[in-house]
């Protein structure tokens, strides 16, 4: 299957087995701390933590690389902007371009920080099944239900959306091939031509999706789904000693990073 969007990589590592709520809290904490504390020491601590976590996760490095690839241009842009607009004494000048050691230093710092952030985030999505992730988010946002925010329903919507993304991508692939068999051309022409070329793909895709959504809603109702009720879980989330230990470790990492 070429259509993989949810990037969960099944495994049995300690990270995989960690309570998803703990993982969400830990990754959020690390990400915030990474931006709050901007010192080389903190960067080294967070970088080392991410590296150790990657090794523990047992997820092959190429999966992290796949997550990083689309962000490379952002890293590149950050680097260029920082190099070009940095203050300090230029050691090399060409027209309006002044390279300074401060600029290069700053650009490197920001780029490394971005990479650490992405890898840390990828650790969460690569080791947590999407359903566990939405379960965790539903649990963590439970206090919002007092404000009448339908968190359970939102979590279910996200779960269903995630479930159907690969299906829709496969559908998209089939429809594009079918229209190509009728002479459609998606690769040539200007922006307008290409946008118009997508009409024979998008119309059927929408029709199929709405039909499927309709069927799914009926099927859920037939199985007695009712919104607004508190649902019980087949696999209740239970945080054990190991989960709490992991959280303590992450807090310790953050505290250390704040001090160095």
């Amino acid at each position, binding site marked *: 299957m070429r259509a993989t969007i949810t990037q969960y990589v099944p495994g049995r590592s300690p990270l995989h087995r960690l309570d998803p709520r703990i993982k969400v809290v830990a990754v959020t904490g690390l990400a915030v701390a990474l931006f709050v504390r901007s010192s080389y020491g903190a960067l080294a601590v967070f970088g080392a933590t991410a590296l150790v976590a990657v090794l523990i996760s047992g997820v092959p490095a190429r999966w992290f690389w796949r997550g990083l690839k689309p962000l490379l241009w952002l890293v590149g842009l950050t680097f260029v902007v920082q190099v070009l607009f940095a203050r300090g004494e230029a050691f090399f000048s060409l027209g309006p371009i002044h390279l300074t050691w401060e600029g290069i230093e700053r650009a490197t710092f920001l780029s490394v920080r971005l990479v650490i952030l992405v890898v840390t985030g990828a650790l969460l999505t690569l080791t947590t099944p999407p359903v566990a992730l939405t379960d965790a988010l539903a649990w963590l946002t439970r206090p919002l239900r007092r404000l009448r925010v339908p968190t359970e329903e939102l979590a279910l919507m996200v779960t269903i959306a995630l479930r159907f993304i690969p299906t829709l991508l496969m559908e998209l692939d089939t*429809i594009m091939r*079918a*229209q190509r*068999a009728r*002479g*459609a051309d998606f690769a040539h022409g200007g922006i307008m031509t290409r946008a118009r070329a997508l009409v024979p793909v998008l119309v059927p895709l929408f*029709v199929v999706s709405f039909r499927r959504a309709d069927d799914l809603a009926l099927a859920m109702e037939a199985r007695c789904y009712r919104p607004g009720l508190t649902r019980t879980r087949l696999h209740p989330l239970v945080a054990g000693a190991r989960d709490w230990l992991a959280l303590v470790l992450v807090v310790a990492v953050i505290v250390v990073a704040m001090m160095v």
Partner: protein
Amino acid sequence: MTAHLPQAAGMRLSCRGLTVAYEEAGRPIPALSDVGFDVAPGASVALLGSTGAGKSTLLQTLKGLLEPEGGDVVLDGLAATDEGFVALRREVGLVFQRPELQLFAGSAREDVAFGPRRLGWAADEVAAAVDAALELVGLPAADFGERHPYALSGGEQRRLALAGVLAMRPRLLLLDEPFVSLDPAARRALVVVLRRLVDGGTTLLLATHDVDAAWGLCGERLVLDEGRLVAAGPWAFGAGGEEAFAGHGLEPPFLVELWRRLGRPVAEAPRSAAAAAEALR
């Protein structure tokens, strides 16, 4: 008005050593291994095999939507590297499984016109091709041309989608499971259309699980099993032929089985209920 599609004679098709693999999680999964066969111009050939045998992959490779790792597709004697091959490939029509899911235009006429327009034909030529294709599939333009595709019945949608490919005047028609999820009336109507095409001389390659429909329409059959071609040529059910069927998740056509149980030679099994009644009278 009579349907005057297709005009040209059927195309000759050959494959040599066709090998196709999908990549899954970085590893290649073989879908077709060393598939080779010949289809004479105007022949109608059933492509049989259980789900996952590689039927859809083969059809999409023949149309050029999938790139084979190895082997050649030869159309009218021309291979992919020969001049004129691209033009020939445009004369290969492929109808996907459940093609009605790909209808998109606001009227039947517009949807059928999509393909011919993409071929760059003049407006009057497009209009003629559209009318002829609609007529051929039994949805005459006068009655159905302005109808919205989604307002048609399932069987009519299937035939409309078929018309969208026929309007491009294919000389080789590849059909992927055309009978799936049709009710008996719609299936019968589709069989009538395909019979017309066969009689009109179009080369037909029909991938299907509906072995009875295939038996009625096709003089020969190809059998795929896990990406390998295990039988080709005229139907055979005698010693060996029977095994070729039973061993690959297939069953013989009803009329063949009936003839076998009547103790009559299966080589003389009739192709239609009418022929069977005639023989038994």
